[in-house]
């Protein structure tokens, strides 16, 4: 069994992820859990789980990232999610470009340089609109599971216009559209459009360079991918495990000391 040489922990606002890598950077183990309020305890338990199931090389290091990175007591170093996502996606896809990461609390667009480091970035962190929370919240109001949204939006059909850029006001719009008899899938399309319009503006602000890549849980949403790709007239590339990109990048940074 290959020994763990680096561990990355991404303590996000909705999920907590861990990735362990061997000295060559190959992934040895992963873990993903819903985030609990006691981040220190949760991440310590995740780390214990990885250590008891795998050999750990002497001197193996741990890098913490994400919203709760300061609370990961076992970390040797803390690095922001911007740098970790850039490193992770660069390793996964092997190229520079532009990464859209839609997290639970914020979204970021990172222009990645040829060395896999962020060259520039923009963050939307002032408002839930433009984040994963926007879709979660509005899906909840429609009584839908967030995992089903992408498929419904990607299917052909009409689209309602959502004019509010605010999550709370968008909810009132949904209610009035439903009252007018609008179809749920058409409303969903409108909601996705409203989210992606913001993201596309951020992509343009950062002076994006292709290819366009996506990470974070929302990258699994085919509707968001299709709308962003369509607006920018480009293909959107997603790594195999987009939710683990940050933790993977953190694990690779742990190998660097």
């Amino acid at each position, binding site marked *: 069994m290959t020994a763990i040489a680096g561990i990355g922990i991404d303590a996000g606002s909705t999920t907590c992820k861990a990735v362990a890598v061997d000295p060559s950077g190959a992934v040895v183990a992963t873990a993903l859990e819903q985030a609990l309020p006691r981040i220190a305890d949760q991440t310590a338990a995740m780390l214990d789980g990885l250590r008891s199931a795998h050999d750990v090389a002497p001197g193996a290091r741990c890098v913490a990232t994400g919203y709760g990175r300061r609370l990961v007591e076992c970390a040797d170093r803390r690095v922001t999610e*911007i740098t970790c996502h850039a490193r992770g996606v660069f390793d996964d896809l092997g190229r520079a470009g532009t990464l859209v990461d839609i997290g639970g609390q914020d979204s970021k667009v990172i222009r990645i340089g040829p060395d896999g480091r962020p*060259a520039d970035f923009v963050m939307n962190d002032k408002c839930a609109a433009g984040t994963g929370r926007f879709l979660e919240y509005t899906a909840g109001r429609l009584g839908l599971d967030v995992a089903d949204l992408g498929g419904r939006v990607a299917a052909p059909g009409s689209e309602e216009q959502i004019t509010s850029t605010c999550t709370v006001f968008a909810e009132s719009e949904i209610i009035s559209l439903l009252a007018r008899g609008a179809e749920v899938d058409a409303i969903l399309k409108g909601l996705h459009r409203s989210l992606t319009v913001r993201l596309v503006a951020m992509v343009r602000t950062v002076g994006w360079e292709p290819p366009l890549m996506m990470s974070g849980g929302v990258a699994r949403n085919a509707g968001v991918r299709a709308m962003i790709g369509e607006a920018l007239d480009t293909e959107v590339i997603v790594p195999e495990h987009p939710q683990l990109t940050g933790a993977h990048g953190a694990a690779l940074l742990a190998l660097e000391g």
Partner: protein
Amino acid sequence: MTVTHRPSRSEAIARAEARGQRIAAVLPYHYPRALLRAHGFHPVEVWGPPGVPRDEGGRHFQAYTCDIVVRATSFLLRGGLERAGVLLVPHTCDALQGMGSVAGDFLQPSQHVLTLYLPRAGRPTDREYLVAELRRLSDRLAGIAGGRPTDAGWADALAAEEAADETLAALYRDREALAVGDREFYEVVRSREYLAAEEFVEAAAAVPRGTAPSGIGLLLSGIVPEPMSLFDHLAEAGARVVADDLAAGARRLYPPSDAADPIERLADRLLGSPPDPTRGTPIAARAAALAGRMAAAGAKGMLIYDVAFCEPELFDVPLLRRHLGDAGYPVAHVEVELGGELGHRVITRIEAFVETLA
């Protein structure tokens, strides 16, 4: 290493009163200190203060007015400026001009509310205008104080304030030879906001000499580094402020003047201050000056740290970003409110910016 004891704001006020001076509460940020001193006033600057709630002040302004103006108005209404005989509101921006009008025409506090209209456009008439404006202010102060300064009073005030200004300039010049972190450095720089000139000179002399801590060099721009824990976060991220363009810092490095008339001398010095968005400096000239300062200090990028809704600052940000980007200097921009500690997201932005420069 830390700096030895400096008088606190309230100690400085008490000492000024014991010297027989009256207190002038002064809003940010260009004003003629020596003129106040010559007329028997000790200036104490009001940058908010950050801990005062917006509520009372907020009733008098639009919701998008900056924290400095709104919190300062709250502070005034709560009696926080009771010990001041004068409230001087320079026309730094439209928000402060508004505050001057609201305070003077509407709130009518116990303090005399004085305004100072600063020229903004870099026109040939600026000097003549500012000299007239300073004479008008001098007349008002003389009316309040019950007399005009003597020649000796003017000479004392100019000498003391110019020595303190030179001390401030020397602190910046010698930054690399000061064995203090950014937080300590800016605590000393900012003590000029309330200390008497001589006390400030003493405080600066107490800064230990040696070698400045190392770190990724940043130029810090913006209005005021509040909360001061900003510097702790920067240090934790591995960065160090090697130069600044702060309203509460290097924007007030006034050059000397050889004019014999005290008021003309003050006008020359105010007009000679570094490029500044509140004074209408053309953006290309400001960017060139900042790029030069970054090159000289070894800064790798610029962090613009603004008070939310600060109009003059915000106008310049997109073009400044473009000009400095073209010159090879990345720029990050964050906006903060002055109500408490820095939020997680602002800290993440700052840390991520430092990581991109590493």
